[in-house]
Each structure stands twice: as structure tokens, then as C-alpha cells.
């Protein structure tokens, strides 16, 4: 197979995925110390989806994300230090410590916000897609969501409206197997998310969410079509999450060795490494260097977050309104 991306782009994609993985692995450790307030939903295991999609985007394209949003934020270019600060509830966080893990946004990067209401994002993405269409900019608007969100009426409404208005919205549904503590095989009545999306009148494709190249190629096709006026589409990615719904979730709904096995068979980083070294596109040394750089970056981000100040109490009443 021809090399789908330049060596530089491949390195960048790997670095993005590795950054998400290490960000989440480190959060898993730090949350256990009790230093991070609130509750956190980790994206580890799903990295290839966020990166495989966002590698097609630039800052003028929009995304909306979910409660499990760290991966989408990093893939869209949000500052890692700023994210860590936000998750620690610090004044210098991306949202001044007022958002937290589930509400990270970075408007300069076209990241319109993680959303803690399941199914809350897709209608917003349709609105941003209207803006893209009206500007004739060729830009697109991506709504990330999970298998749980795809059972929400808001998602059906958003899909239908996107088709009716023929706007460049892409619904990326990451089926990680579980809606909180309930299996997707139970909760998704049709068992076929792409098929259901197709029934709304849009193109829909499935991809292997553990394989960056599968996501990248399929997303590229749909995004490219949307940019040239074909209207909305759905990308269904089959994937797993390596942690619970939230940190601290005992995961009693999962078979004993499920995650262990999936970490062997469905790890997008391992898959990526195997593929690029086998094809001769990158070397192990290339990837090892990235691994080391990422670990240092995360270590620095955590150190900075721990040492940073929380917002002053006076911040409680700021930013409710622009004028009031």
C-alpha cells in the first residue's frame, strides 16, 4: 500500500494519539490521589478516532465533544497544559477553572466545547455547520458522540435537520460498547448505528476505531464530500474504552479479562506502531523518541497544574453575562 501520509504527518498523528493516551493514563493515577476534583471520564483506547478525524481538520473547522472529551480536545489542538490546569480546577486553565474535565473548550482552535449532556452536542454542530455553509468556506462541523448518545432524540433531530438543510455536519459515533453501565448491544435497538443514520438520508460508513488508518481513510472520504457540498454524513467507529464510564467505576458489567484482552487486541498505538514499522514508513526509534517527549510533556503539565493557583473567589460572578 502507498504511504497514506508523509512521515511528518504520521509522526504528528502518532504523537497526538500518544499524548491522549499518556494524558489519560496519568489522570488515572492522579485521580486516585484525590487531588483532582469532581469526576472524570477517560478516553484511553479511543485515540485513533479523535486523531483519525481531526487530522483532516484545521482551526477553522469546528468540533463539539462529549463528557469523554479530552481526546477530542487534544486532537483538535487544545493546549495540553491548559487542559491539565482546567482539570485541576486552576485559574489558568483553558476555561479559567470554571469548566472542568467535562467542559473544556478552545474557540481559537475551533473546539466549541465538551458537553456533559449526552446528545447535547449534535444540535450545536448543526448550527456551526449552518455557519460553515453560509460562509461558503468549505469548512465542516463535527459532532463527536458515543453509542449512548445515538439513542437520544436530540441526535435524531440533529441528523434529520442536517439532511434537510444539507449542511456540512459529520456525526462521528464512537461505539465503545457501553452506554455508562449498559451494553450497546442492549441499548442500541437496531445494532446498526450507521444503518440508522443512513435511514435519515445521509451517507454513513463504519470503520475500525482501533486502526488509525481505517478511521483516517473513512473520515477523509466523508469530510471531503461534506466540504464539497454533499451534505452531512455519519462515521461509526467500533472501539472500546480501557477504563470505566468514569474513574472509580467498578465496571461490574464487563467480563473479568475483557479490558486486558482489548489492551492486547484493540490498542490503536500498538496497531499503529506495527503497521508503520512493517511498511517501513517510520522506525521504532522515531516512535520511541515521540514516546519519551510525550511523557516529559505530561509530567511537566501535571507539575505545573499541581503548583498553580485556584481561581480567586471573586471569579464566581464573572463571565455569566457579557453585559448585565
Amino acid at each position, binding site marked *: 500500500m502507498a504511504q497514506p501520509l508523509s512521515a511528518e504527518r504520521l509522526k504528528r498523528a502518532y504523537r497526538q494519539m500518544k499524548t491522549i493516551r499518556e494524558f489519560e493514563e496519568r489522570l488515572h493515577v492522579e485521580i486516585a490521589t484525590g487531588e483532582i476534583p469532581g469526576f472524570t471520564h477517560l478516553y484511553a483506547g479511543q485515540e485513533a478516532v479523535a486523531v483519525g478525524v481531526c487530522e483532516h481538520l484545521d482551526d477553522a473547522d469546528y468540533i*463539539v465533544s462529549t463528557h469523554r472529551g479530552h481526546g477530542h480536545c487534544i486532537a483538535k489542538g487544545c493546549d495540553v497544559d491548559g487542559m491539565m490546569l482546567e482539570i485541576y480546577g486552576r485559574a489558568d486553565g483553558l476555561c479559567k477553572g470554571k469548566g472542568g474535565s467535562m467542559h473544556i473548550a478552545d474557540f481559537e482552535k475551533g473546539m466549541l466545547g465538551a458537553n456533559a449532556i449526552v446528545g*447535547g452536542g449534535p*444540535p450545536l*454542530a448543526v448550527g456551526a455547520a449552518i455557519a460553515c455553509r453560509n460562509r461558503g468556506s468549505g469548512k465542516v462541523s463535527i459532532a463527536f458522540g458515543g453509542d449512548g448518545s445515538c439513542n437520544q432524540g436530540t441526535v435524531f433531530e440533529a441528523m434529520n435537520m442536517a439532511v434537510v438543510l444539507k449542511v456540512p455536519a459529520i456525526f462521528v459515533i464512537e461505539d465503545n460498547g457501553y452506554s455508562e453501565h449498559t451494553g450497546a448491544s442492549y441499548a442500541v435497538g437496531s445494532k446498526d448505528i450507521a444503518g440508522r443514520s443512513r435511514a435519515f438520508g445521509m451517507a454513513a460508513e463504519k470503520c475500525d476505531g482501533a486502526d488509525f488508518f481505517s478511521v483516517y481513510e473513512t473520515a477523509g472520504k466523508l469530510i471531503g464530500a461534506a466540504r464539497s457540498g454533499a451534505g452531512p454524513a455519519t462515521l461509526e467507529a467500533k472501539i472500546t474504552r480501557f477504563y470505566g464510564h468514569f474513574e472509580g467505576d467498578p465496571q461490574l458489567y464487563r467480563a473479568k479479562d475483557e479490558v486486558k484482552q482489548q489492551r492486547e487486541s484493540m490498542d490503536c498505538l500498538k496497531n499503529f506502531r506495527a503497521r508503520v514499522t512493517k511498511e517501513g514508513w517510520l522506525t521504532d526509534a522515531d516512535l520511541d523518541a515521540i514516546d519519551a517527549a510525550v511523557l516529559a510533556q505530561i509530567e511537566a503539565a501535571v507539575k505545573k497544574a499541581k503548583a498553580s493557583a485556584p481561581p480567586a473567589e471573586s471569579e464566581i460572578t464573572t463571565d455569566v453575562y457579557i453585559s448585565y
Partner: protein
Amino acid sequence: MAQKSFRDALNEAMHLEMERDPSVIVLGEDVSGGAGGTSGHREASGGIFGVTKGLLPKFGEHRVIDTPISESAIIGAAGGAALAGLRPVAELMFADFVGVSMDQIFNQMAKFRYMFGGKTRCPAVVRLAMGAGMNMGAQHSQTIYNFMTAVPGLKVVIPTNPYDAKGLLIQAIRDDDPVMYFEHKALYPRKGEVPAEAYTIPFGEANVLREGEDVTVVAIGRMAVFAEKALDAVAKDGISCDLIDPRTTSPLDEETILESVENTGRLVIVDESPPRCSVAHDIAAIVASKGFKSLRAPIQIVTAPHTPVPFAPSLERAYVPGPAKIEAAIRAVLK
């Protein structure tokens, strides 16, 4: 100055703002109507109340967007478009339909600026037709601005006359915060003087419709129209009242109300909503806590009963606080 209806004043506001600012869009069910119909008449409706008439032929389908009946998607699209730099005016048709789109209002657009650390704005307007009096039944007649007034991050506008309707809507469209704009259905035909040009009325500035000595009457929305009749009736007995139309309940012009109560010492509040957790009771609580020393009599509160809006005309007439009830409250507060 030309006499125009409340409906035409709203329509003119949207025409002017869409002309002035290409980022203004209008979306909602039947905002033009006719799409996909068999008559070929593309603007078959112009809004179920005719408020958006003429916008589609002038501004085209990309800016005047007929949507499916999908309230969450309509309000959500407005929120998302606002985040992406547009100034959407979403029509929710009946205010009661807030029920099916509530998440997009109070969890989404209301909170964006705060949750995201002040790094964005959501300049969306949601237009909601409200109010009883047209026998439309329990799910098409409510006022519900009290729900919205309770939400930090939202601004709530309730115009009572055509002049204010236009100036407040233009302000709402230009405003950088999300605005819930309530239009009482019974007021659409109400006529008044409206200048042709664009003008704005600032939020948080009550309109003192009449000045008097004996009683302060605060009346919201259509209730201001009924209160004027009640004031005419008591004037025959030499009773004069301040009549205050708050115009916006969030922000609320507390100062004008408190100053008036300081002069009169007596307060009547009139609100078409049911009483519990109503704007009327909120205003009463504000005056009781900040202006208690001015009060010379218990505050009189005139609201609808704690019931859904009934259908039968005889019942609905009894539901809506009318001039007679307001007059009785004014006399009671003076006893």
C-alpha cells in the same frame, strides 16, 4: 409617526437587522412555510403569527431557514451557530414548546460563556409566543418566563407595546448574550407609534407608563394593558398609581420599583403566570427584603391560579388576571 402593530414592529426589527448585519439569520418552524408544499407558494406562512413575513423573499433560504418540527435541534442549532459567529433569531413558535428544547436553552446556551471561562459568547435570540386568552388550551397558552428568569446566563425580555417590541428586539439581536424574547399572542394586533428607523431600548430599564402618588403597580407583559384599565377605573375615585412595566425580568430594574414603593408605600404586582416561584413573587421578595421600611400595607399579588391554563372560554377568562382583579387589588392595598 406611523401607527404599526406589535407584529409589524417585530417584523420591521428583523428586516432592519438582517439588512444591517449579514450574520443575522432566522430559523424555526414555518418561519416562511411552504417548503415542500404542493402549491409552489414558497412563503406560505411567514411565521404562524406572521411575524417573519417577507424575510425569505428578501434574504433567501440560507438566512431564513425553515426547519423540521425539532425544537431541540432548532434551539441547539441557534446556540451552535452563535458560537460559530452568527446571530441567530430562533422562533420557537409557542413558548410552551420550551419543554422539548429545555436542555439546549438552560444547559447549553445559558452556560457557554461561564463554563468556558468567558472565552466565547452566544448571541442567540429565542422568540417565544406566549400567553392565555385565545382558547388554545393548556399546552399552547402558558407564560413560563419565570422559568427562564431563574436561569443565570439568560436575559428575559417581555415587551408590552409596539414601540418597545421593536426597540427591545433590535437590542436582543445586537446583544452578545442569549436572550429569551417573549411575545404575548394577544398583543400582536396591538397598535402604537413606531418610528421607521432602527433604535434600541436597553435591557434592565423599566418603563414607567404612568406616574401617581398612592400605589405602585408593577405589571408584566399583557398585564400592563389590563393594569391601565384598572388605573382608569380607580382614577375616578381620585386614586393615582405609578404603573411600572419592567420590560425585562432578567436583568430586572429593581431600582425603579424600589424608588416608586418608597414614594407610595403600597405595591400591587400583576403577573399572568401561576403564583408559585413566579416573577411576581420574586419582585415581592425583593421589595420585602430591600424596601420593607417603605411598605405601609401587605403587598398585593395578582396572578393566575395554581392550575394549568383551562380551555373553556368561561374558565380561561377567570384564569387570566383582568382589569377587575387588578382594580380590586389596588383598592385592597389601600385599605
